[in-house]
């Protein structure tokens, strides 16, 4: 990748003072995409909006990277009864802290995107599910929603058209699993966040048994950009297979941690060394977790030429996830780190599926044993066997998310694990 990124101007979170205020947002082309659609509904039928978004290939920013427009096209024909959009602002994957930037600095871009999504899928009610720990950010979003209602962008007969949609915020209460889309719906329905067995998929049976689409906050914030400038324009930002602007959350051992907005497909070493100011204290890079805790860690020597997009990261042996990059320096103890990640998944498993409930516990216990110096070589085999018995055998992907970091760390940092293990399984004294 060239140096183009240096002249890149953020669009999801532009550097405009007080953009969270609706009048400032309006002065900067805000709500123009929505107006464009509602002014020319012959051109912009709901189906055409879905198609435009599908062509733009907005890859879901919640972790799975699914084409947003394609997901929208799964919604059945309206039958006169309620249909829902659930916006996923649970943002609980360790290493991820980007959606909150939209709530704080550019909430109307997200709101506009959600309204357009509702128009395209002929949806009546939008719920924005936000983790309970983000209370101050929910308050900021709520202010923006109130402003949008006052100005007629939300509510009955939007901008004088016959299109109506309501938007409500729903505050979670501390449960990572509620970011999983079917758990999120259970939580919205006032229950414990137990993921549902799929199929049926949410487009068939979602909230209160009605067709529902779930999208991440950042995904929806991309929608007005596409509708304003067109899919072709959008496809020219970053790689065509994973286009558009991305909020990169960079944390860990760098000089300038924070959330940065650049095109998808940024060179990883450029992000670490130039954007985030390099590894702290002049230390060497040891590893990178590229997209939140569930994405397999990559060793420093595996990062040459790798870019932040689904395809490049898959080839390198990891995933894009949420683009929450955790940078780890040479002094990082990978066993401690992976133990703590396992502790997290054990704590957050909802407990419905035996392989996950028991597996996450055994991963945590076994890693704790190794970390404390009581492990044996055969515990590494045990860990891999547990991973094998978890992967692909559960209702939701939390079990996989828990297994991957363990499996790939043992593979990629094996020496470090072995060093902490006793060399024999027998008592020697």
């Amino acid at each position, binding site marked *: 990748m060239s140096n183009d990124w240096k002249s890149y101007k953020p669009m999801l979170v532009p550097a405009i003072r007080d953009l969270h205020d609706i009048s400032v947002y309006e002065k900067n082309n805000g709500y123009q995409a929505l107006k464009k659609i509602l002014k020319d509904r012959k051109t912009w039928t709901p189906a055409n909006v879905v198609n435009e978004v599908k062509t733009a290939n907005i890859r879901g920013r919640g972790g799975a990277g699914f084409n947003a427009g394609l997901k929208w096209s799964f919604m059945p024909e309206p039958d006169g009864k309620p249909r829902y959009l659930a916006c996923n602002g649970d943002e609980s994957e360790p290493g991820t802290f980007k959606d909150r930037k939209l709530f704080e600095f550019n909430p109307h871009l997200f709101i506009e995107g959600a309204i357009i999504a509702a128009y395209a899928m002929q949806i009546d009610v939008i719920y924005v599910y936000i983790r309970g720990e983000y*209370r101050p950010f929910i308050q900021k979003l709520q202010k923006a929603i109130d402003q949008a209602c006052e100005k007629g962008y939300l509510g009955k007969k939007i901008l004088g058209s016959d299109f109506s949609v309501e938007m409500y915020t729903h505050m979670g209460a501390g449960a990572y699993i509620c970011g999983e889309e079917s758990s999120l719906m259970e939580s919205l329905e006032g229950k414990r966040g137990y993921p549902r067995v799929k199929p049926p998929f949410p487009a068939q049976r979602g909230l209160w048994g009605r067709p529902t689409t779930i999208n991440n906050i950042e995904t929806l914030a991309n929608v007005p950009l596409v509708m304003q400038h067109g899919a072709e324009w959008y496809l020219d930002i970053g790689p065509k297979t994973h286009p558009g602007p991305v909020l990169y959350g960079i944390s860990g051992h760098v000089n300038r941690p924070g959330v940065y907005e650049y095109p998808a497909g940024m060179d990883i070493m450029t992000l670490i060394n130039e954007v985030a100011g390099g590894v702290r204290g002049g230390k060497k890079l040891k590893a990178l977790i590229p997209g939140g805790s569930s994405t397999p860690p990559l060793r420093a020597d595996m990062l040459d030429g790798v870019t932040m997009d689904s395809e490049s990261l898959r080839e390198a042996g990891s995933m894009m996830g949420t683009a929450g990059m955790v940078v780890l320096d040479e002094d990082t103890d990978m066993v401690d780190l992976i133990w703590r990640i396992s502790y997290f998944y054990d704590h957050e498993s909802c407990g419905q599926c035996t392989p996950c409930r028991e597996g996450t516990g055994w991963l945590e216990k076994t890693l704790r044993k190794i970390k404390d110096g009581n492990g044996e070589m055969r515990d590494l085999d045990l860990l891999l066997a547990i991973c094998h018995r978890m992967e692909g055998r559960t209702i939701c992907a939390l079990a996989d998310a828990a297994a991957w970091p363990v499996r790939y760390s043992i593979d990629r940092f094996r020496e470090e694990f072995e060093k902490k293990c006793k060399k024999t399984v027998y008592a020697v004294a």
Partner: protein
Amino acid sequence: MAETYTFTAKDLKEIEKITAKYPDKLSAVLPALWYAQDKFGHSDPSVQQLVAKTLGVPEAHIRGVVSFYTQFYEKPMGRNVLDVCTCLSCQVSGGYDMLHYIEEKLGIKAGETTPDGEFSVQSVECLGACGYAPMLQVTNDKFVNHLTREKVDKLIEDLRAGKKPDFESNPMPQHEKGS
């Protein structure tokens, strides 16, 4: 000893407003519990009973919900709850150092409350402030980022004096440079 809690007419109006956002009353369980906890400071069994009665939802269901979500307090907590993040980015940026410093300073362990009822301390999972580690959250509300021992000292002093932390904004570093 369990206290009896009640909602005033004004509370009931607010809860009605919440319920109106959903197609059924069951769906209002989380926001109604939040409303109750904000008012009473916790969601112990007697608060659960009140919420159950108000919404017409079985008490067992409410109990199940309260015990599932970590932010609902199943018993009364200290006046200030310090939720110290020790997960991933915080772990590798000194989160445990901060937790242990606070434990030492207050003379309690994570999961405990000071005898004067002023502080509870918990070691918690990722709070979504990874770039601003180490950090903590005060009683399900404001985040306090970039913790140092000095910052912790000041925070605890302020909280003792009844002064809650302000909202800390963390702008995008790109903006500071660019404009």
